């Protein structure tokens, strides 16, 4: 009795956060579980993403390495191209080529989905203060909640495999796309937007002819961030069945295989640097042009 009076917070009955979430999860699973699993089957390892991996593996590695090198040269600089060439050859040489392709596929698909959802969401947050006020705390929540927490429900809904990994990756890496798209559009000078309006432009014209082009460098920064965050998820994603370099790292950890863990980790770093330099340079190029 006395300790309760001395510590009145104890008088509040337990709030069942954990069990409420569990019940909500069960309810939702019963509602859409069949569909999400069907989607997972069609989109996952044996579906779309598997086909992308197969297609990339069908191309002879030397040809693919050359193509990616050329792309890096075109979009970025000769130095980046040289790094790409050496880095990819090293990955191949260490025996992680298949893993690298699987990882790249996971990253590209996740990032594509993040952009497809994130850019329109960002536009909405820029256009409406109300949406902005609702969405930003959710983004804070998504980014600060430990990523592992998403893994379990993802597995419930999408089973172990690429799709669960992709969902967890999207949840974790999409926020910067939304944030920076919204920010980029809001940063366009008021007078410039007024000028567009004063000539009688429609909302769509205003968005596509003025706001989006001017927000592009910021949006590109968001996409760059998104790619980096997605890469940082590969090991965690491997825990729920994503194949690729991440699973090699995980295996290295589990078997205390220091060399193998480091080698596959190095592969992730190489991919990260290549993707970062390429996307960053497209952003800088645009800025200089503008």
């Amino acid at each position, binding site marked *: 009795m006395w300790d309760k009076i001395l510590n009145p917070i104890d008088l509040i009955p337990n709030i069942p956060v954990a069990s409420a979430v569990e019940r909500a999860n069960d309810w939702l699973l019963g509602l859409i579980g069949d569909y999400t699993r069907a989607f997972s089957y069609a989109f996952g390892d044996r579906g779309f993403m598997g086909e992308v991996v197969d297609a990339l593996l069908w191309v002879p590695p030397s040809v693919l390495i050359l193509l990616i090198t050329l792309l890096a040269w075109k979009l970025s600089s000769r130095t980046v191209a040289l790094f790409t060439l050496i880095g990819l050859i090293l990955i191949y040489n260490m025996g992680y080529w298949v893993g690298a392709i699987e990882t790249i596929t996971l990253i590209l698909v996740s990032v594509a989905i993040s952009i497809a959802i994130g850019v329109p969401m960002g536009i909405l947050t820029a256009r409406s203060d109300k949406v902005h006020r609702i969405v930003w705390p959710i983004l804070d929540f998504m980014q600060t909640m430990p990523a592992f927490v998403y893994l379990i429900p993802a597995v419930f809904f999408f089973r172990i495999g690429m799709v669960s990994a992709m969902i967890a990756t999207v949840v974790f890496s999409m926020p910067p796309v939304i944030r920076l798209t919204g920010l980029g559009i809001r940063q366009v000078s008021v*007078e410039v937007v*007024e000028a567009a309006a*004063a*000539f*009688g*432009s429609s909302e769509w014209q205003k968005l596509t002819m003025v706001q989006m082009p001017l927000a592009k460098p910021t949006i590109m920064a968001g996409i760059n961030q998104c790619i980096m965050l997605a890469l940082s998820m590969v090991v965690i994603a491997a825990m729920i069945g994503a194949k690729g370099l991440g699973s090699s790292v995980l295996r290295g950890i589990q078997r205390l295989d220091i060399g193998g863990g480091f080698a596959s980790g190095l592969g992730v770093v190489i991919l990260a640097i290549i993707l970062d330099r390429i996307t960053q340079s497209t952003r800088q190029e645009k800025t200089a042009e503008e």
Partner: protein
Amino acid sequence: MAKIEVKNVTKVFGNHPDKALKLVEEGYSKDEIMEKTGQAVGVLRASFEVEEGETFVVMGLSGSGKSTLIRCLNLLITPTEGTVIMDGEDITAMNDEQIKTMRKSKQSMVFQRFALFPHRTILDNTAFGLEIQKIDKQEREERALKTLEMVGLKGWENRYPEQLSGGMQQRVGLARALTVDPEILLMDEAFSALDPLIRREMQDELLDLQEKMNKTIVFITHDLDEALKIGDRVALMKDGVIVQIGTPEDILTNPANEYVAKFVEDVDMSKVLTAEGIMNDPEVLAFPKDGPRVALRKMREEGISSIFVVDRNRRLVGYVMAEDAAKAADRGDQDLTQIIKEDVITVKPENTLNELFEVSASAPVPLVVVNEEHKIQGIIIRGTILAGLVKQTDELIETKGENDIEKETSGDVGQNT
């Protein structure tokens, strides 16, 4: 019918405009309303009309509501109360679609900080309005090139705004507005961000362009000199209220209240007063067929040492000096044709005193004000220019006193010549 009629326009910024409007009805001022309701009144019951082809200047210090007012004319800001009628149509009652059409077809705007699109070339900036109207690429680029040439930016069309100086950027802003060939041009402090020399140049160019195009212009400025120079009529705003509307001379000579009077106190009159305003009636003129003695007598009666000669239609021919007339009379000449001198300096009625100063210094005889047909309108003696300034700036000098000054100075000039 006026091109633009603004009736009782009020704009309140805030969440509860009706509270503020109630106080507006009761006649409270902007500050009192802010204090009582927390609502910011931008414009308070503004009413004015702008005629077709007129340049109407709204002038006020920052925070006076002038930028809000001009945005009510293209509905970038929707008035809380009141109507804006353009060509007989109430634009404040229009729906979004109609507003877009109105903006495309009737008007365009030039902005203080240029508001060019940094990602578009000068050509694409200039053609923007036409692109919005979905006019095909070839036509819009042709028209854009034409206006760029008009504002003196030929050859710059493939550059980007940041590669141009401020003055040039605003020329692009002007070209962009003119390319759509609007009936109404809204200029929001268009020249305020430019340095003084460029600003003056742009003002002159706007006046030149306006002479050719004859648009209806609403021009916002905080610079009184600019307002008086550009405006056919000027509206003075203070705290969201229009305190006086009138021609530049009206505002200077009959300030509606102390605020306006204080405002115009420091105005450089030489830039505002025109030749027309200060010229004297050329009461005595000679004709070429007059005999030298007639001319001499006219000069003697007026106490002047030279006389202007005009033809039967009062078109200026030249002038005759008293000493030449005397010699001609001795020679027995029958008329003045032999001794007429033609090195007269003529000015236009709309030339400002400022401009007169420059030319009068080198003039042997008084300046002659002529109209386009070269008919004589009046004459200006060098002393009159100074007197004109004194007359306007110092209200204490009475009419009689002024006349004395003029007489004296005209005598001086006569002797000098």
